[in-house]
C-alpha cells in the first residue's frame, strides 16, 4: 500500500516508485512514493532496519536508487553527475545523532568550516558563523571545544553548521537519540523555529513522545515500504500500522 499526503504546495522532495536493493541482496526500500512540500515538517518513523536510514542516504545522494526517481528541488538525484553533488549538498543541511563535529575545532570553527570549504571570504565566514551560533543560542560558546560541551550544546553546534548555508531542506537522522529528554525537547524547539523560518525539515526519529506531542506529519516505514502517511499523526498509530501489516 502506498500513501501520499495531499498537499497543494510545490513539492520540494518527490520520490517516485523508489526501490533500493543493496549488493548483498537486501531490499531496503520497495516502491516508495513520497511527496514533501516546501516548508513541511515531517517525521520519518519505523523500527530499526525499516529503511529510514537508506531513505536519508538516498536524499543526500550517498546512494542511488536501484529503480525509480527522486527529485529534490526539481533535480533528479539518480541522474545527478558527481561534480554537481557538492552544490546540491550545500542546499541540504544535515544533522546526525552523533553530531559529527571536528574535535580539534572550536564551536565557531566547526560552523565556519562549512563555509571555509567553499572558499568564502573571511568576513563572510565570520558574520554568518556568528549569526548561526546566535540562532542556536550559543553566542557565548564561540571558543569552546566539543569535548567541553554537553551533548545538547554539541547538537546545537551541529545544527548551526547545517544552517550556515541557509539550506531550504534540513535532514536530521535521530538528532535527539543521544540526548536526555529535556535536552531533546530543547533541540526540537530549535527545529520548529527553523521550520517556521521557512526551511523544510525531514527528521528520522524513534522518540515517540516528541512525535506524539508535536502532531506533525508522520511517515511510517516498515519493511522498506511506506505504510502510513498522516498529516498530523502520532508514533503509536504508526507502530500499529506496522503491526497490522505484519
Amino acid at each position: 500500500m502506498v500513501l501520499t499526503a495531499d498537499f497543494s504546495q510545490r513539492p520540494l522532495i518527490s520520490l517516485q516508485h523508489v526501490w533500493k536493493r543493496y549488493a548483498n541482496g537486501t531490499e531496503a526500500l520497495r516502491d516508495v512514493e513520497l511527496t514533501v512540500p516546501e516548508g513541511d515538517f515531517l517525521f520519518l518513523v519505523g523500527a530499526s532496519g525499516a529503511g529510514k536510514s537508506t531513505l536519508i542516504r538516498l536524499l543526500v545522494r550517498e546512494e542511488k536508487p536501484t529503480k525509480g526517481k527522486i527529485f529534490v528541488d526539481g533535480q533528479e538525484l539518480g541522474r545527478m553527475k558527481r561534480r554537481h553533488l557538492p552544490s546540491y549538498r550545500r542546499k541540504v543541511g544535515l544533522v546526525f545523532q552523533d553530531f559529527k563535529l571536528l574535535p580539534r575545532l572550536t564551536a565557531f570553527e566547526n560552523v565556519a568550516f562549512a563555509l571555509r570549504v567553499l572558499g568564502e571570504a573571511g568576513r563572510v565566514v565570520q558574520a554568518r558563523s556568528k549569526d548561526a551560533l546566535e540562532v542556536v543560542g550559543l553566542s557565548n560558546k564561540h571558543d569552546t571545544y566539543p569535548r567541553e560541551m554537553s551533548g545538547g550544546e554539541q547538537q546545537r553546534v551541529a545544527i548551526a553548521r547545517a544552517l550556515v548555508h541557509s539550506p531550504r531542506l534540513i535532514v536530521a537522522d535521530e538528532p535527539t537519540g543521544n540526548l536526555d529528554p529535556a535536552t531533546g525537547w530543547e533541540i526540537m524547539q530549535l527545529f520548529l523555529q527553523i521550520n517556521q523560518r521557512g526551511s523544510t525539515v525531514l527528521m528520522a526519529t524513534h522518540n515517540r513522545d516528541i512525535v506524539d506531542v508535536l502532531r506533525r506529519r508522520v511517515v511510517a516505514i516498515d519493511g522498506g515500504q511506506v505504510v502510513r502517511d498522516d498529516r498530523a499523526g502520532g508514533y503509536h498509530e504508526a507502530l500499529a500500522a506496522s503491526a497490522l501489516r505484519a
Partner: protein
Amino acid sequence: MKLWRHLLFALNSAWQSFWRSAAVSLAATATVTLILTMAGINLLVGHTLAGVLDQYRARVSVISISVADDTPLTTVTDFEDQLRSDPRVVGVSYLSKDEALARFQADPVNADIARQIEGNPLAAKLEVRVGKLADVAAIDALARQWRGADRNDPTDYQGEFIARMLRLSAWLNLAGVVILFVLLLISIFIVMNTIRTAVYHRRHEIEVMKLVGATEWFVRGPFVLEGILTGVLAGGLALGGLLLAYRPFVDRFHSDLFFVPLGYDPAFVGELARDVLVAGALLGALGSYIGVRRFVRV
C-alpha cells in the same frame, strides 16, 4: 581570490596532516629518501659510466691504417681522398714514418724501447676518425682491401672489443632504466599507502567536508599536496646526501682504480638536482593522486 583561499586551506591542511601523523609521514619520507638516493646513485653511476664509455668510444672510433713502406705517396693521397669523401668518415690524417717514430718516442711509456730502436721500424699511418662506432668495421674492411696497406698489420681495429663495448653500453642503459622504473614504482606505492593512512586519520574531517558540500578536489587537494611535500622533502634529503658523497667517492675511486677514466662532473650536479627534486615531486603527486582517487570519494 577564492582559488587563493582554497590553496591556502589545502597547504595548511597538508602541512598539519603531515605532522599529525608525523611517525608515518617521516617513515615514508625516509623510505622515499632512500629510494631516491638509490635512483640518484643509479643516475650518477650511469652518467659516469657513459663518460667512461664515451672516452673509450672516442678512442676506438679512430682506426689507424699502417701504410706499406713501398707504397707511393700518390696512392696514399688517392686513398686519403677516397676516405674523406666517404660519409661515414669524420676525418683523416696522414702520419709519416718520421712523425710516427717521433710520437712513439715522445710517449714516456715507450722510453726504454725507444732507446734501443735502430733506424725506423714504424710504418707511416693513415688515422681515420669514423662517425659511428658501428661503422668502424666497414671502414676497417675497406682499409684491408686497399693495396697500399701493410700486409702484416693493416689496421689496429679491435672488432671484438668494440662489439663488447656496444653490448655493455646497451645492457647498462637497459639496466639503468629497469632499476629506475622499479625504484619509482616502489616510491609511488609507499606514498600511496602513506596517503591511505592520512585519509584514515582524517576520515571524520573528510566525512564532514562531504556533508557540507566541499568539492571533490577541495577534499583531495591537501592529500596530493601532502604527497608532493613528502616527495620534495625526500628529494631534497636524497640530493643533499648524494652531493655530499659524490666528490669524495669519485676521488677515492680514482685513487684506487686510476686506470679507469672516472671523473667528477660539476656540470652534472645541476642536472642531478633537477632530476631528483622533480622526480620526488612527481612521485609524491602521482602516489597521492592514485591514493586519493582510490580512497577519497565524494
